[in-house]
């Protein structure tokens, strides 16, 4: 009887500890989310305001008829800046998406160039037998070449986006473009923080729901 009495409180204590751990995790993630939200909102607003002011300045110098939505490209075209959405593999029973920003197709470019490099390595295995210094120099030069190709791709993407408003655009419009790009990075961070918090919230909410039943 005494053994059974000891077991029952232990089980309850274990469940209580488990629930407390989930609640603490939720509180921590919520604290992190709102702290991040506050700082990111300030950063976002800073870059957005900067972008809005630069846009207004560009409109002033180029003319309102040259910087407006009438000029937007309504023909079929794909977005150059997209998101990579993955699910956290460590959390099988949850839905916590992770967002990664791919600006101007940069992530897809890096992947393509990485695959190209590995296929070249397979075609020329004798490179592995050369001296380490020469190999590292070749690797550095190939990395530099890959980096240059990515930079070219990014610059082409930016120029194409600006070309909607004409061939010669105000430097302020280019600055506005960079400001909004930075704002996008901030927003993706916010999306990830939101996702983490909602995952923790979902766990606590589920526990509360089970407890009420």
């Amino acid at each position, binding site marked *: 009887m005494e053994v059974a009495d000891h077991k029952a409180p232990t089980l309850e204590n274990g469940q209580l500890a488990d629930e407390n751990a989930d609640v603490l995790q939720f509180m921590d993630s919520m604290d992190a989310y709102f702290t991040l939200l506050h700082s990111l909102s300030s950063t976002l607003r800073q870059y957005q305001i900067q*972008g*809005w002011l630069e*846009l207004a300045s560009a409109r002033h110098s180029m003319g309102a008829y040259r910087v*407006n939505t009438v000029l937007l490209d*309504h023909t079929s075209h794909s977005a150059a800046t997209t998101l990579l959405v993955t699910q956290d593999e460590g959390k099988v029973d949850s*839905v916590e998406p992770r967002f990664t920003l791919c600006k101007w197709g940069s992530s*897809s470019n890096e992947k393509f160039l990485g695959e190209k490099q590995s296929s070249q390595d397979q075609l020329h295995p004798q490179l592995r037998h050369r001296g380490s210094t020469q190999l590292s120099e070749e690797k550095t030069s190939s990395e530099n070449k890959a980096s240059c190709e990515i930079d070219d791709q990014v610059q082409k993407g930016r120029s194409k986006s600006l070309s909607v408003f004409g061939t010669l655009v105000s430097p302020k419009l280019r600055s506005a473009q960079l400001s909004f790009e930075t704002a996008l990075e901030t927003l993706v961070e916010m999306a990830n923080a939101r996702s983490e918090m909602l995952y923790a919230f*979902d766990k606590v909410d589920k526990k509360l729901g089970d407890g*009420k039943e």
Partner: protein
Amino acid sequence: MANRAQIPNSNSALIAMIADEDTVVGFLLAGVGNVDLRRNTNYLIVDSKTTVKQIEDAFKEFTTREDIAVVLISQYIANMIRFLVDNYNKPVPAILEIPSKDHPYDPAHDSILSRVKYLFSAESVASGRR
């Protein structure tokens, strides 16, 4: 709260926008604009002539499209369709309320905060202890 279905991994998901002209133009400069073969865009420019119904329809469209991962919506526009935004509970696409030129961000209206508030209400804590 969240659906238990797996999130399909996507390497080219879009960012949708429901915002004023300058905000949309700014993010379009950053390269997020997409127009498909049917000339459907991933953005809605809201001005004084845009009706609440149009905003609602755009929100419903963007949150049901499989190629959209994040929906950016100006908070003052989200307030016009607050019922829809607060009742949205899917992990993807993620809804982010952003400030606009004339309306700074107000955390009190954030849909995530309002969803979390009830956890700390006296009633929910008391019912949990029963």
